[in-house]
């Protein structure tokens, strides 16, 4: 009998060691998933891609019927907006031409704003709400790499956390913490320069992003749009993130912080775009130089 008791203790100890080992293995900062993980993720992912399609289809139809109720009001509003856009469109076309011409004069072909879009569809969301991660149906074979930005038409929603061969997981903006900052610009109305800062994390209670400015700026207007600056080395320049809701100082009164409301709706995700920055960062240049 005492032998069994000892054996049971032994098993408990072994399983605890396995638990701690696996957690340690997955929590350390790794560049790539192991091939076993990739295989399991791809297998489940491809089945999800097929089996869950009809479910999403039904959801979209229900959503469409819901939207139809507001179609008339929206149409009126959109017509009003459209007339102002004609003017803007002309301006933008002129500016693009001018910009291209000037860049040609300067012999500058690469810019921080350039990126190649990879279209993807969300196929699953983590059942554990503490993780804020979704799975998309594009992976390494389609050119998706770790740390790429993910956007929708209305703004940025997150970045690639890990990529398998045919699927990838996306860490949404509400799961960001201090270890994955985004360098951002905020347009200042009076001067030519932009206010610079970092996205520090997500405030769960307010459901808004926390922005810390590197300097102290006086005239930051509310509702100003926040863009990525491209200086963090990972994301391209000019991705819309959100708009400023409140400007205050931090708890010690030393730095200026702001709360940013997200432009994109991260609760209702369907089609997303993975952003592959064309301009290589310094790290990547060094890596290719080593080879």
């Amino acid at each position, binding site marked *: 009998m005492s032998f069994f008791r000892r054996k049971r203790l032994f098993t408990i100890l072994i*399983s605890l060691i*396995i*638990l701690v*080992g*696996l*957690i340690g*293995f*997955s*929590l350390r900062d790794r560049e790539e998933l192991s091939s*076993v*993980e990739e295989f*399991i*993720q791809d297998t*489940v*992912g491809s*089945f*999800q891609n097929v*089996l*869950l399609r009809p*479910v*999403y289809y039904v*959801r979209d139809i229900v959503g469409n019927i819901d939207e139809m109720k507001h179609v008339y009001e929206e149409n009126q509003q959109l017509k009003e907006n459209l007339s102002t856009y004609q003017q803007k469109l002309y301006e933008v076309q002129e500016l693009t031409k001018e910009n291209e011409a000037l860049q040609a004069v300067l012999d500058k072909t690469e810019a921080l704003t350039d990126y190649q879009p990879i279209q993807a569809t969300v*196929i*699953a*969301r*983590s*059942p*554990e*709400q*503490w*993780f804020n*991660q979704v*799975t998309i149906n594009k992976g390494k074979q389609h050119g998706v790499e770790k740390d790429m930005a993910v956007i929708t038409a209305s703004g940025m929603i997150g970045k690639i*956390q*890990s990529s398998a061969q045919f699927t990838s*997981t996306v860490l949404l903006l509400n799961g960001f913490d201090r270890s994955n900052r985004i360098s951002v610009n905020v347009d200042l109305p009076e001067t030519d320069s932009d206010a610079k800062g970092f996205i520090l994390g997500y405030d769960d209670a307010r459901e808004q992003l926390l922005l810390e400015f590197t300097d102290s700026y006086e005239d930051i207007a509310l509702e100003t749009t926040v863009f990525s600056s491209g200086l963090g080395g990972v994301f391209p320049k000019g991705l819309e993130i959100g708009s400023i809701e409140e400007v205050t100082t931090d708890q010690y009164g030393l730095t200026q912080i702001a709360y940013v409301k997200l432009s994109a709706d991260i*609760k209702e995700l369907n089609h997303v775009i993975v952003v592959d920055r064309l301009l290589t960062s310094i790290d990547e240049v060094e890596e290719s130089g080593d080879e």
Partner: protein
Amino acid sequence: MSRLFPLLMLFVLIIFQGINFLFIPNSFEANGFIVTIHGVFIFLIMIALYYDEETSYYSFLYAIISGLVLDIVYSPVIGVYMFSYAVVMYVVHHLRKVLHVNFYVASFVFFLSITLVDVIIYWVYQLIGVTALHLQSYIEQRLLMTLAINYVVFLIQFVLFKRLLARYSFERFEQK
């Protein structure tokens, strides 16, 4: 079929874990509730109660496998679901030996094991810093609602799978 059915069903349920958010009403999140549907684990309870023999440990084995797959596919931390599923399934398997299984006992086992699983998952995630929720707010915001929602899932699975599992169990273990 009697051998394949539990594994096949587990795989389908693992896939459907990815759209669980569609089944949770939006008003829950607006009110600050965090709900997780443990569809796979509920099916494991059904296997333990109606499929497994006293000497076979299929529910335990399946718990380890499906826990590992859930970890890899749906979370960046591997091992948490696997550990909690395996430990609680072991307890359920031993409970089954002393209990005479009927609907009320099954409900009791369900409440006990789901509470255990969810608390272990919360406890480990809190330990490694995934969540900073305090015990009191965890119970208020997550545990009670999770139990309620999962009980509905349990009732559905009970109606759908109980007879089927009992039949396949009979075919596999008795008919020889």
